[in-house]
């Protein structure tokens, strides 16, 4: 359900971009999705198919998902590590004083259109 709401946001945003650039047809939309953004790529592409086909501009367009890995930073030992593998606790020094460096992204990168 969350993915569908997000898809409506993408469509609204890109309809605006389409208007500004005088686009008639969108062929593909590339988005960048962080590993820990909480969005499930499979659900997202399913929701996209359904929602896009209800519009003229996005009908039959493809949603391309680029996954971005998540990295966490440790404030105590200054190490960077893989978030999904180790979670919040630093595998280097055991500190919990860590924060997410990247991996939370949810961006529209580009569209190909005519």
């Amino acid at each position: 359900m969350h993915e569908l709401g997000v898809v409506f946001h993408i469509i609204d945003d890109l309809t605006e971009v389409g208007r500004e650039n005088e686009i008639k047809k969108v062929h593909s939309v590339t988005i960048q999705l962080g590993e820990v953004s909480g969005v499930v790529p499979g659900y997202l592409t399913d929701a996209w198919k359904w929602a896009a086909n209800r519009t003229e501009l996005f009908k039959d367009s493809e949603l391309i998902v680029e996954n971005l890995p998540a990295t966490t930073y440790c404030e105590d030992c200054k190490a960077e590590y893989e978030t999904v593998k180790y979670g919040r606790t630093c595998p280097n020094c055991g500190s919990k004083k860590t924060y997410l460096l990247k991996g939370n992204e949810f961006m529209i990168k580009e569209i190909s259109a005519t």
Partner: protein
Amino acid sequence: MDNVRVIEVKRSIFESNDLDADKLRKELKESKTFLLNLMSSPGSGKTTTLTRTIELLKDKYRIGVMEADIDSDVDAKTIAATGVKSIQLHTGGMCHLDADMTRQGIKELGVEDVDFAVLENVGNLVCPAEFDTGSTKNAMILSVPEGHDKPLKYPLMFSICDVVLINKIDVMPYFDFDLEKCKENILFRNPNAKIIPICAKTGEGMKEWADWLSAQIDLSIK
């Protein structure tokens, strides 16, 4: 056939909503209305807490409530019984409210005669946290039966809240709920969070909550 063009967009998917939310926040400030976005999981006691809060504050402020639900109007009926202005927002299956839906609700509610507006968001700890509604302050309710580990499981929700109410503390003896551990878990995610243990049913802690809220409203609308 026209040539296919690639257009760089490079925009966060939440950006347009974030901008819209900031705009709504400004509009509300100008109309001297404080908007509280109240979030929680289903069954944590949002409507009961809200009913008690209204009783404590309705002589001081002109209150308006927007009840967001996927369907039904049971909550709106309960709130209407308290005598304050209330409307029901149906999200049509959507799991959260965004700034635009909130603006439509605000329009329907009418804020010219409202100092303190409440948006009772859809019961859900994930999606409402992602979409800024344009509220002045975010509050969430975590109830004892849900467990003290929830701040670790739903970090975003806890990190965006200005205040966390820990509800149903009267049943604490029957659950493995560690209040200190819970506070620690919340502050770990959000060091600035105000935490108030309450029981909406018995009224325990409700004065502290009403006082905190009242101070926030006065700061914002005066």
